[in-house]
């Protein structure tokens, strides 16, 4: 029974790696693990390997090969008869595979030892199930186009960054059933991302930082390409093997430090998609699921399209926030702070701010909060415009792409997470209001 090649994508992402048989010119068969299989079109597949093997040499001399795939949802096994068309050592498909391998290595914190020689494009001469299959095939997932359309409309209607982030993540859950997701934005002038919004977790995780190149998210940012991991456990086992082999060859890749980020501890399916706008990396959209093989290339395609929409919307929000803000808005009747003084400490060294003994935030966002609290304390001010923050050189905002709006969103969310007594809310375009429920004791600690 013939089935469309795209239906085989679940075979590529399960617990079991595909295997390939090739044959040397002298007639000796050989079997190798296939690390990467991509569907090129209805007649071609792309294969790649993370290891040295005899397969490339064999198929260079004798282009015929046979690949065994297992759909671990149904246990149906498929045999593909292939003929090598060409090997690519550069170009988009090679880059896609290389980045995928970097992402796989990043699951275990390995860097820089997997350099695939080529991605090989094969014509599929024949494919057929080897047996009847054991379990019934799950129903096809509904086409996502209608859901993407709805979410795109919702994203387009957002006027400020905070709402945009929440609408996007809530919409991914409601329309597309991505229940666990987060958005990290890039920190201009650095090689870091910081988490600014999440959905589906017990805590918001706002403020967690990821260095470019670290983990699946960091690699997606560094490479500006999506990373799809469909079986983290399989890759971790495989990475242990890669590391052992590297050690045998005297090339120990070492281990990166742990990434302090919220997430599902047992997530097997992971997808990190860069958010780009006008050629700049704005952040990363990250999704995960506990079950293995829950994301396929279709998910990646859908999320790349949505991340493009999100990138444009983020830039539009930033443009809007850069406009002059309207006149101050009459606020609610303020209630005088009461209760014992709340100690807020700021460390000049890294602009980190602690409320009581709890760390709140550092860097530019810390400097912004310190300025707002001092203005409140010294002048009784509670409303502030984005423009005056931008003009304050002491805050250390970069001249171009300052991400002020994103830093304010991060600050708002960290305050919600960590303090019951200080709030920052948006009251109009490019204007925020500070609310303080307890008397403040501000203490700045200088550089030592």
């Amino acid at each position, binding site marked *: 029974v013939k089935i469309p090649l795209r239906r085989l994508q679940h075979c590529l992402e399960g*617990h*079991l790696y595909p*295997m*390939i*048989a*090739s*044959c040397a*010119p002298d*007639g*000796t*068969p*050989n*079997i*190798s*693990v296939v690390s990467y299989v991509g569907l090129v079109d209805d007649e071609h597949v792309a294969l790649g*390997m993370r*290891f*040295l*093997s*005899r397969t490339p040499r064999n198929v260079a001399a*004798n282009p*015929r*090969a*046979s*690949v*065994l795939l*297992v759909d*671990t*949802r*149904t*246990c*149906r*096994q498929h*045999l593909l*008869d292939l003929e090598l068309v060409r090997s690519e050592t550069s170009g988009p498909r090679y880059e896609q595979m290389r980045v995928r391998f970097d992402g796989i290595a990043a699951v275990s914190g390995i860097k820089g030892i997997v350099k695939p020689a080529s991605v090989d494009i094969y014509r599929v001469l024949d494919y057929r199930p*080897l*047996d009847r*299959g*054991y*379990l019934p095939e799950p129903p096809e997932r509904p086409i996502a186009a209608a859901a993407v359309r709805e979410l795109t409309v919702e994203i387009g209607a957002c006027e400020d960054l905070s709402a945009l982030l929440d609408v996007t993540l809530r919409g991914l859950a409601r329309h597309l059933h991505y229940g666990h997701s987060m958005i990290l934005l890039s920190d201009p002038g650095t090689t870091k991302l910081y988490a600014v919004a999440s959905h589906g977790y017990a805590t918001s995780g706002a403020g967690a930082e990821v260095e470019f190149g670290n983990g699946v998210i960091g690699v997606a940012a560094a490479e500006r390409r999506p990373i799809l991991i469909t079986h983290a*456990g*399989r890759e971790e*086992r*495989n990475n*242990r*093997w890669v590391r052992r*082999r590297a050690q*045998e*060859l005297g090339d120990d890749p070492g281990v990166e430090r742990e990434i302090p980020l919220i997430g599902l501890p047992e997530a*097997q399916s992971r997808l990190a998609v860069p958010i780009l706008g006008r050629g700049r990396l704005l952040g990363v959209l990250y999704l995960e699921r506990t079950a*293995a093989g829950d994301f396929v290339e279709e998910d990646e395609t859908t999320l790349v399209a949505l991340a493009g929409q999100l990138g444009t919307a983020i830039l539009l929000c930033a443009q809007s926030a850069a406009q002059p803000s309207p006149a101050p808005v009459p606020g609610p009747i303020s209630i005088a702070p009461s209760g014992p003084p709340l100690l807020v400490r700021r460390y000049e060294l890294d602009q980190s701010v602690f409320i009581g003994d709890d760390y709140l935030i550092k860097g530019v966002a810390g400097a912004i909060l310190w300025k707002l609290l001092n203005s409140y304390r010294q002048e009784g001010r509670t409303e502030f415009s984005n423009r005056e923050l931008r003009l304050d050189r002491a805050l250390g905002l970069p001249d171009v792409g300052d991400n002020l709006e994103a830093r304010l969103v991060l600050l708002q969310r960290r305050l919600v997470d960590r303090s019951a007594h200080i709030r920052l809310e948006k009251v109009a375009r490019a204007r925020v209001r500070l609310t303080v429920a307890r008397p403040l004791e501000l203490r700045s600690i200088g550089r030592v």
Partner: protein
Amino acid sequence: VAAVIDPALQGFIESGVSIFVATRDNANVPALTRGAGCSVSPEGWVTVYIAREQAGRCLDDSRATGAISVLLVMPHTYESYQLKGADARAIELDAQDRTRVTAYRDAFFANLAVIGLRADVAAGLLPVEPEAFVGLTFVPTEISGSGRSNDAEDAA
């Protein structure tokens, strides 16, 4: 010349590792199927069991050329060995072989459970009835694998 299979390797070969079998026809077109257990005779011959339903082309190839390669991989460690031969021939299974196939299924499925594959899924990889299997017997002339550094490139 037959390659030497030491007791440790024999233990690995006869355990519940993942097994794949490749053959080729007269035009050097390879075929691939899943193995369902392996045994080593006192003389050093290797018999790999395969399901008739899944292995039609491999059986045809064995009659035509006899060239064979068997890859054995421990699913959770990726320790692997590849045995190659040139004289594979099909045999019907006797009672002892059928017992080995049944024991292999149990050991293999236990190894797949370690990597998180559900038992109901694993069970579908191989037929249940021992009568569904045949054997390919050959003399291994070449052995490579992750435990043998000279053949590092064949480890996968």
